[in-house]
């Protein structure tokens, strides 16, 4: 029985962690290229959830359901990309050569702006995310339940991460991204269009956030304008835990965080659900500041 409960928690933790991982990837990619934390990323995620909500009511007549879900997901990803590119163009690009702290503060400003703007537009009331796909148990044991949404969440996340891995390591664009990440000035001297590469990094990060928002909405159908705050913080912790700047690290960090939360609630108390994430952050910063899979950057004085 305890083994069954353990496996059940493993399943639940994996599904929760996959969403964190997808959001964490957005933090880590922007950090890898620009060395600043894009705090507005969590609000891109939140806007994605609302975008998905409206798209779902607009596309309600489309059948079959998997096609409808695919359309909603692609539409939401596109919407998030447009918002993120607008933010990048208006708020971040003018500060490309400014001190990093200025960009960081701008990011916090953009985050607050997006949260309060959506409170005005969508209202402070939590809204119900439609169940685009009906929840069906795939494995219905007496003690272990596995449903289609959980499989979908983990499956889609893995699929997107594999695509991301392929883009970064096996395409010309990925090589350019890594070059910009290594040294932006030298990369630009080598003829790499750095602005374009940076914009593309935002495209990837925000489309991952958009897909994460849909997966989140399917699992926890309650969305509100401040939805991104906690998830953003947790995903940020996941990114730091895995080693900020490391794509593999963000994926691993997200999953570990999801599992840690579920096991904490099950074995200790629900009051520690949020505390555990930040305890992990503190411990990793003390023990291994570069993160699990991060590398130390040597700075010449």
């Amino acid at each position, binding site marked *: *029985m305890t083994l*069954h*409960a353990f496996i*059940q*928690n493993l399943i*639940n933790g994996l599904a*929760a962690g996959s969403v964190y991982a997808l959001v964490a990837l957005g933090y880590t990619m922007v950090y890898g290229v620009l060395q600043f934390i894009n705090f507005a990323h969590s609000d891109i995620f939140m806007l994605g959830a609302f975008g998905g909500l409206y798209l779902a009511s607009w596309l309600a007549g489309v059948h079959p359901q998997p096609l409808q879900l695919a359309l909603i997901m692609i539409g939401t990803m596109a919407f998030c990309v447009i918002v993120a590119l607008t933010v990048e163009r208006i708020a971040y690009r003018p500060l490309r050569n400014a001190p990093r702290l200025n960009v960081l503060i701008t990011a916090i400003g953009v985050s607050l702006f997006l949260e309060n703007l959506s409170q005005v537009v969508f*209202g*402070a*009331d*939590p809204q*119900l995310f439609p*169940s685009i796909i009906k*929840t069906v*148990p795939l494995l*219905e044991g007496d*003690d272990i*339940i596995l*449903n289609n*949404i959980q499989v979908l969440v983990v499956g889609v996340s893995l699929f997107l991460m594999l695509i991301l891995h392929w883009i970064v390591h096996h395409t010309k664009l990925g090589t350019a991204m890594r070059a910009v990440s290594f040294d932006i000035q030298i990369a630009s001297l080598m003829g790499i269009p750095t602005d374009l590469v940076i914009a593309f990094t935002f495209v990837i990060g925000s489309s991952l956030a958009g897909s994460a928002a849909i997966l989140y909405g399917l*699992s*926890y*159908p*309650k969305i*509100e304008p401040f939805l991104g705050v906690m998830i953003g913080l947790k995903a940020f912790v996941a990114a730091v835990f895995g080693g900020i700047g490391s794509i593999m690290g963000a994926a691993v960090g997200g999953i570990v965080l999801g599992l840690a*939360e*579920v*096991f904490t*609630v*099950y074995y200790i*108390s*629900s*009051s520690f*659900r949020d505390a555990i994430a930040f305890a992990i952050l503190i411990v990793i910063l003390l023990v291994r500041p570069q993160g699990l899979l991060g590398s130390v950057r040597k700075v010449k004085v």
Partner: protein
Amino acid sequence: MFSIFFRPCGFLALSLTVLLTGCIKKNAGDQTEAANRTELLFGEYGSMTGPESTFGISTHKGIIMAVEEANSTGGVKGKKIRVISYDDQGRPDEAVTTVTKLITQDRVSLILGEVASSRSIAAGAIAQQYKIPMISPSSTNPKVTEIGEYIFRVCFIDPFQGSVMAKFAMESLKYKTAAILRDVKADYSVGLANFFASDFTKRGGTVVADLSYSNGDVDFKAQLTAIKGKKPEVLFIPGYYTEVGLIAKQAKEMNYKGVLLGGDGWDSEKLTEIGGDAIVGGYFSNHYSHEDKNPVVQNFVTRYKSKFGEVPNGLAAMGYDAAIVAIDAAKRSADLSSKGLRDAIANTKNFQGVTGIITINDERNAIKPAVVLKVAGNNLYQYVTTINP
């Protein structure tokens, strides 16, 4: 150096003295000012937005209806009643701010609110401090009226509500094992869970699991995994409808087959919107049922329907009752000072409200029966039974 510092200091001290005397004078004039006004001002604070928005909106509709009806028959002592309403967004800190504003800026004679006990407790302390009577329509946690002699309520309290559901689970449903999933951030939920647990055990049942969540959580699967392992026949969730809906949904996904029970925090049309068919079959205690055959209730339901085009829920009925108790007290009160209003409310005896006969006892609570409702479908709540104190 000395003179440079001294001068502004002296000026500051002088202006402070002026300000302070001004304040004192204003306060002293308060009572006569309130009595001489051409209208009677009621203040209302509630969660018009936020995760418990339907509570505030329903209560507001009940209050507005009661006040309009009173005004159409001439008001109180020749004065029309006006209600000033503020939204506290479902946050205790905002509740404190709005009540302070109602008292110090709008200078209301009486305050109506809140639904959630955490916010009534936070803001009630302010009302008590300024000695302005406050009537909570539906905060059931005992601590609310324990604040002081100016804080009242027109509903039953959680020791009774908890025992109602424990009695119902044991005697009507014949179940012996229960699990509890409580919201540790809400005074209401913690109190109700404790009273349910002690009464259920006293009656010979066993509470096999007692777990918690926090207001705003969305994932309850870990708690539900733990609960499912203990195989309780009933799961008591004394929370608010947003989380309860999500919990019910996830409980169904986790294949938990027991019966779900709850309190008046379930009373919202959003409960079935969020919970869907997962919440159908659950039972909760409430203040009244619109299916009650009592002509007072039916008359109220008809008037409310023709005004707002919807069936009033328990919170609308409680809001209405809080307002008519206040209006009745104002009519009986010798003057419209806050002391006079307070004494008149405290003397409310056998007053016919929509949710039952209201008598305010020495603890400033109302002693009333509770009804048990069954969730029957999309925004459909069937009357099951009435349990008397």
